């Protein structure tokens, strides 16, 4: 081992050890998918991202117990709800159980004179109270009103009943056996809201495990639990991707090992081949962790694919080493090309650093560091560690690239350019090239999406799609605005445009409204007189309603209801998710359920004349967001390509050579996109990332095809290295393409197609010893 080699190996070992120690001690992995969302450009998008990350809709899990008799299901529902409520992991657990709802109402009973919209001055005059008492009399007489009987002495004006009706879920599920059921009575339904935000996948997974454990304790024979919701979808998606990715990479690893063993006929070069890519990944993750802090799981996944190119580096070195050549001599021949291959990939990734998306920037940084480390390890560490003789048993490279003899340079150029033009036209003519549906970025099977929709409609759960957003300078302002908008929304319910809505002001009226309600309550003496008059002619016992007099007097003297005094109750947490301070002002959200006519709702909101009222269609915003993301990624891809072109031009110092390198890559990329779109595939972000890899490996193929030619043997060795490298890439791409996960399949198919095209076009345009010898038009 030479001195330089020893230094390189020592430096490499120190780097690997330091990275290893850093990662084991300090690596923080996050699973927050929203890192792959951009910095919000608009107010609506800011809210959208907030909602996607942690909004109520993102925290809802929908549960269904089915396949058993109605009574059995109802019992399981109650048992499950009790256990979940006790677990402490859920803000709310709702299964329609009247007792559960009654407990919630009990909390509000003490606050009825502040909360009930029925509290107006006329209600507490002698005439108003007389009506109320007549109503009470009818209630007293009707056995059906027994549940409200006990509150009559304290609440003869029926504010509790009014609140109960207010909080009923309009368009909600049918109730059987005291709990929620689907319309056909075959499913008991529950809705829970996790404490953990939707983006915290680990916490969501824990909540789901809690549900499954609790269900196992109450599970009736033969019945089954079905779950849906954004948290479940994300957790399942992560698990599926991890499982499929692990399976694909195992298959690919075995395939590549067998391939390399076949080529090198010795285990040592095979083992050494893994070092550059592994070191690169290790170094890259460490660098991202040092620079950005928490590393995104998905960044690592993508980066592992992009760094996959680095697996080719040792192949280029080992496969091109001649029979009596040292690795140092080989590097002397191919070093410049290898350096250019590393630099072009880093350069392509450099553009991603400019991205406003934290996830993409991380991905770019990881790729740059990873590829450079892998290049350095190949250049300096491998020669020091590899004894020349272990490559001696390598497969004899005796084949030439099979190029049709009739295909001259001009014809080859002509056909490649023609193909590129046709592809460009095909792409241009396809107006449905991109898939901007955010939902399609999550690898959830269509079946679970359908279940989610079904349960959501059966439950009347807030559609995660529509949201009215109100903003105002202060909390009081936004609450007053909410109360005005509530009247508009009530109108929309009456007209049938929407099914219902949620609003924080229901649970926390504005101080103005509280003040008005308190002012509507007469003083003790007046109320007693009014009540006395109201009781004339009715058979109530004198003094029967003294608890009422006391309650009103108490309500008159109570300090205004603050959010703080609702803390810890189901309503307090509900309010917090619907009312919060934004960056500049206060925000109130009104999730709308059962939207039947969004246009009518929008028109009603517009004609209310209120400012800063926004009807947010989350789906539309999300689609817009994805389109923006894609546009930026595409722009970065273009900048990356331009950088690569400049670099290749500078490295090769020849326009013709630059053309021979870039033309096949561009043609391959275009034809790849055209092929996918003609096969009916709509492109997503994942296809773009895959195209980046195609550009990376394609450039390498073209660079090696065009490296300064030596002997025919050297040319044959170069062809061998390209055959091995491309076959290895194809193997891993096909393993991904065979996966059941749409995301992985998208990447695999794109890379597989692109690799074949890039290799073919590079070969067609390459300078060729045979061709050079015989000359064009032989």
């Amino acid at each position, binding site marked *: 081992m030479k001195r330089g080699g020893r230094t390189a190996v020592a430096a490499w070992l120190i780097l690997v050890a330091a990275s290893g120690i850093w990662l084991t001690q300090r690596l923080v992995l996050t699973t927050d998918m929203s890192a792959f969302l951009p910095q919000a450009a608009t107010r609506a998008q800011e809210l959208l991202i907030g909602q996607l990350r942690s909004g109520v809709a993102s925290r809802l899990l929908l549960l269904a117990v089915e396949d058993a008799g109605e009574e059995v299901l109802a019992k399981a529902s109650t048992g499950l709800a009790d256990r979940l409520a006790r677990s402490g992991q859920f803000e709310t657990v709702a299964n329609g159980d*009247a*007792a559960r709802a009654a407990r919630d109402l009990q909390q509000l009973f003490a606050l009825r004179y502040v909360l009930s919209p029925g509290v107006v001055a006329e209600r507490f005059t002698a005439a108003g109270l007389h*009506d109320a008492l*007549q*109503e009470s*009399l*009818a209630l*007293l*007489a*009707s*056995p*059906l009103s*027994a*549940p409200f*009987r*006990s509150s*009559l*002495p304290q609440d003869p004006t029926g504010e509790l009943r009014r609140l109960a009706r207010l909080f009923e879920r309009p368009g909600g599920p*049918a*109730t*059987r*056996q*005291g709990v929620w059921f689907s319309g056909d009575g075959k499913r008991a339904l529950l809705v829970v809201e996790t404490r953990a935000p939707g983006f915290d996948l680990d916490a969501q997974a824990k909540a789901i495990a809690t549900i499954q454990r609790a269900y196992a304790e109450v599970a009736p024979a033969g019945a089954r639990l079905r779950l849906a919701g954004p948290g479940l979808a994300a957790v399942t998606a992560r698990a599926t991707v991890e499982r499929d990715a692990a399976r694909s990479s195992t298959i690919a690893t075995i395939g590549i090992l067998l391939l390399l063993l076949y080529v090198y006929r010795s285990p040592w070069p095979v083992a050494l081949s893994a070092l550059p890519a592994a070191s690169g990944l290790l170094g890259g993750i460490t660098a991202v962790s040092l620079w950005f802090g928490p590393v995104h799981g998905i960044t690592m996944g993508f980066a592992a694919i992009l760094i996959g190119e680095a697996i080719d580096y040792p192949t280029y070195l080992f496969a091109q080493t001649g029979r009596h050549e040292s690795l140092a001599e080989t590097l002397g021949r191919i070093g410049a090309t290898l350096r250019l291959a590393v630099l072009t990939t880093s350069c392509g990734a450099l553009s991603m650093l400019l991205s406003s998306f934290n996830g993409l920037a991380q991905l770019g940084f990881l790729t740059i560091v990873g590829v450079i480390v892998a290049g350095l390890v190949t250049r300096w560490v491998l020669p020091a560690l590899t004894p020349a003789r272990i490559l001696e048993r390598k497969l004899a490279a005796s084949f030439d690239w099979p190029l049709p003899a009739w295909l001259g340079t001009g014809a080859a150029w002509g056909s490649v350019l023609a193909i590129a033009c046709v592809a460009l036209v095909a792409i241009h003519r396809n107006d449905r090239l991109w898939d901007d549906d955010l939902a399609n970025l999550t690898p959830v099977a269509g079946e679970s999406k359908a279940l989610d929709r079904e349960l959501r409609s059966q439950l009347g759960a807030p559609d995660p799609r529509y949201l009215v957003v109100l903003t105002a300078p202060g909390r009081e302002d936004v609450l007053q605005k909410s109360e005005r908008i509530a009247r508009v929304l009530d109108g929309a319910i009456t007209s049938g445009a929407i099914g219902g809505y949620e609003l924080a002001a229901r649970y926390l009226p504005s101080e103005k409204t509280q003040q008005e309600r308190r002012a509507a309550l007469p003083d003790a003496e007046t109320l007693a007189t009014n009540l006395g008059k109201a009781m004339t002619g009715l*058979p*109530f*016992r*004198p003094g*029967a309603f003294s608890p009422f007099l006391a309650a009103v007097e108490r309500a008159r003297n109570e300090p205004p209801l603050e959010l703080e005094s609702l803390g810890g109750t189901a309503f307090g947490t509900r309010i917090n998710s619907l009312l919060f301070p934004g960056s500049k002002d206060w925000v109130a959200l009104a999730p709308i359920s059962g939207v039947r006519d969004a246009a009518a709702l929008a028109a009603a909101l517009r004609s209310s004349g209120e400012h800063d009222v926004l009807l947010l269609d989350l789906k539309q915003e999300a689609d817009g967001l994805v389109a923006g993301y894609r546009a930026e990624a595409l722009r970065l891809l273009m900048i990356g390509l331009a950088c690569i072109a400049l670099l290749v031009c500078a490295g090769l110092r020849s326009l013709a050579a630059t053309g021979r390198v870039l033309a096949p890559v561009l043609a391959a990329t275009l034809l790849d996109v055209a092929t996918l779109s003609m096969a009916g595939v709509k492109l997503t972000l994942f296809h773009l990332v895959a195209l980046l890899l195609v550009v990376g490996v394609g450039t390498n193929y073209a660079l090696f095809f065009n490296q300064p030619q030596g002997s025919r043997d050297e040319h044959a060795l170069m062809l061998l290295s390209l055959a091995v490298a491309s076959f290895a890439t194809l193997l891993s791409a096909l393993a991904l393409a065979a996966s059941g996960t749409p995301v992985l399949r998208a990447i695999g198919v794109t890379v597989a197609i692109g690799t074949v095209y890039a290799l073919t076009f590079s070969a067609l345009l390459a300078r060729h010893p045979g061709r050079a010898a015989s000359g064009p038009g032989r």
Partner: protein
Amino acid sequence: MALAAPSTPAADLDLPALMAMLAAVPAAKESFTESKRSALLSAPLVLKGTLVYGRPDRLEKHVLSPYQETTVIAGGAVTIENRGLKQKRSFTLSSSSAITALIEGMRATLAGDAPALERHYRIRLEGAPDSWLLTLTPRDEKLAGLVTSIRIAGARERLKRIEIDEGSGDQSVMLIGPEAP
């Protein structure tokens, strides 16, 4: 309030026989007088009105005095309309098991539907076909908190008197038929 004990235990009546008699009635319309005692009231509240029954699951209670209120139970739907207060409220029967049980106490009796009755109540039957007494004790805990017992007295296929004891101590006695005062 004790009901007059059946005087002739000679011709005993069993539940299937009573249910069969009741089930043979397709429809009925009777006037009623209901007297309600409550801790909130200084004197019993007396309601007068009409009861209408249509086989198998329609029940109407029209209160005509001292106020006007109509309760219609048809299948699973309940509508209560108070004309004086201009209030109308509808709900689905299945939305509360306690209320369902309460209604079935009367409706299943009228329909002669023993299984429905058994589902919600423990049943005791005394007396002879001409004078029988059916005592229903709720099985459901929630209902038991609201209603402790329902006693229905009748002669052959006709209901004569319904007594409901509520958990709160309130009690109502309903007399049915032309002889109701």
